[in-house]
């Protein structure tokens, strides 16, 4: 019979600590939309320092980029001038379309979908490890932030809040492989083309649309937008542009490589969507470990 006395107290203590930490991971990973008192204290005390150091880092990064990429900046400047000239024409057309759209919406009695209450926030820290794609912003529950609120920029969708302290919140970026978003192809709007955007660790910084049926109307250059399903993300926010379309590993469904509209490396200011309408269906609402596991299994 196995006797405990055969094990040294040191080994038992070591194993006890390992088991305790594993239990702690399991417990805190399940239900951790709010921080504990100690975490709140540490994060609240440190957030001004993080903000200051982040600004320093941003300045250093800008300086380094300016030094190393002077030619690229000149070239980019020339290209941007051309793009701007072209945009002016599009802008006029879009204004006309917007007016028409507004009139039609009024006629139909629809509430304007893009009228969300936005709260600006600054990015004060980024996860330095390569395991997670998260940022920390300088707004917390004191400012009305809650778990699952969508985070956007003028360019498009950034991610959503997943942990909230008094004055700071952690945001899970679209590029994190734990995140999945229901999307639409803007051009076709075929319901069958709704897929799931996931972080794509093999191509860092890119996203992947999976679960697209074989007949889905999607091609390179298409714009991907959020479908609004689940009540977490507002409908119609730009997610990115399709770079490649191909078959999945089993050859049954289509998948696409998407370049995100937002430059996640250069995020400095973001907006939190405060008032999205809650829908009954909740595809991407669950951020607990169990929820993510179940969600992943059911999606793949």
């Amino acid at each position, binding site marked *: 019979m196995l006797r405990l006395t055969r094990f040294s107290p040191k080994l038992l203590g*070591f194993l006890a*600590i*390992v088991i*305790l*930490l*594993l*239990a*702690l*991971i*399991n417990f*805190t*990973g399940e239900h*951790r939309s709010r*921080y504990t008192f*100690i*975490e709140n204290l*540490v*994060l609240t005390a*440190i957030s001004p*320092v*993080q*903000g200051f*150091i*982040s600004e*320093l*880092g*941003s300045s*250093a*990064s800008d300086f*380094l980029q300016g030094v190393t990429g002077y030619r690229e900046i000149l070239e980019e400047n020339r290209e941007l001038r051309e793009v701007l000239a072209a945009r002016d024409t599009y802008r006029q057309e879009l204004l006309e379309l917007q007016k028409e759209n507004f009139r039609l919406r009024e006629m139909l009695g629809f509430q304007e979908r893009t009228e969300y209450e936005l709260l600006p926030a600054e990015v*004060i*820290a*980024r*996860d*330095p*490890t*390569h*395991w*997670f794609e*998260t940022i*920390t912003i300088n707004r917390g529950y004191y400012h009305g932030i809650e778990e699952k609120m969508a985070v956007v920029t003028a360019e498009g969708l950034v991610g959503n809040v997943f942990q909230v302290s008094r004055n700071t919140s952690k945001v899970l970026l679209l590029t994190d*492989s*734990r995140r999945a978003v229901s999307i639409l192809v803007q051009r076709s709007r075929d319901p069958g083309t709704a897929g799931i955007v996931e972080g*794509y*660790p*093999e191509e*860092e*910084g890119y996203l992947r649309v999976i679960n697209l049926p074989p007949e889905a109307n999607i091609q390179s250059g298409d714009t991907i937008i959020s479908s609004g399903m689940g009540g977490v993300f507002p409908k119609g926010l730009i997610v990115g542009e399709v770079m490649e379309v191909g078959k999945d590993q089993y050859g049954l469904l289509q998948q696409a490589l998407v370049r995100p509209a937002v430059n996640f*490396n250069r995020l400095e200011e973001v907006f939190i969507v405060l008032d999205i309408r809650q829908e009954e269906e909740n595809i991407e609402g669950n951020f607990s*470990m169990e929820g*993510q*596991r179940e969600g*992943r299994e059911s999606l793949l």
Partner: protein
Amino acid sequence: MDNENGITLAPYLIIIFLAVILLVLEGSFFALVFLRGIKPDLLLIVIVCLSFLWGEKKGMILGIITGLLQDIFFGPAIGFFALAKMLSAYFSGLISREIYKDQIVGPMLTVFFATIMHESILYMLVSFYWGAEMGFFVAVESIFLFRAFYHFALTLFLYPIIYKADRANFFNPSYR
């Protein structure tokens, strides 16, 4: 501040202060300056070097304390980095028994292997809780080894500083 087991509190308070500074720098400064490049985990290097000098018992405590701090800052759950850092520090302290502490190659190799161990533990935890999309050997080849070599090289500069600071009782002011 000695207790019955000869463990003093001062070194741990200094390490907590140092860890907070390193974590703020890693999250706010390095994350912007290095952008998408693989960023060094300076905290891991410091912890492994100190465990190498202080042995597995103190190393284990260092690993837990600093890992818990990292969990508060960046962890998806409490205990995630604490477990990885504790085991890496314990490993470092164990193998240091057989290696000369005043020669640089020992700690450099220890940091190299401790980094691979640290990353592998994190990989296993991520795989278990969220499912890793990247295969283990792909991750070793494309990330872990690169990071291990990176840390290996940085140890060349950091270990002499940590070694001298330790000899000068920087971490234990009461013995100065």
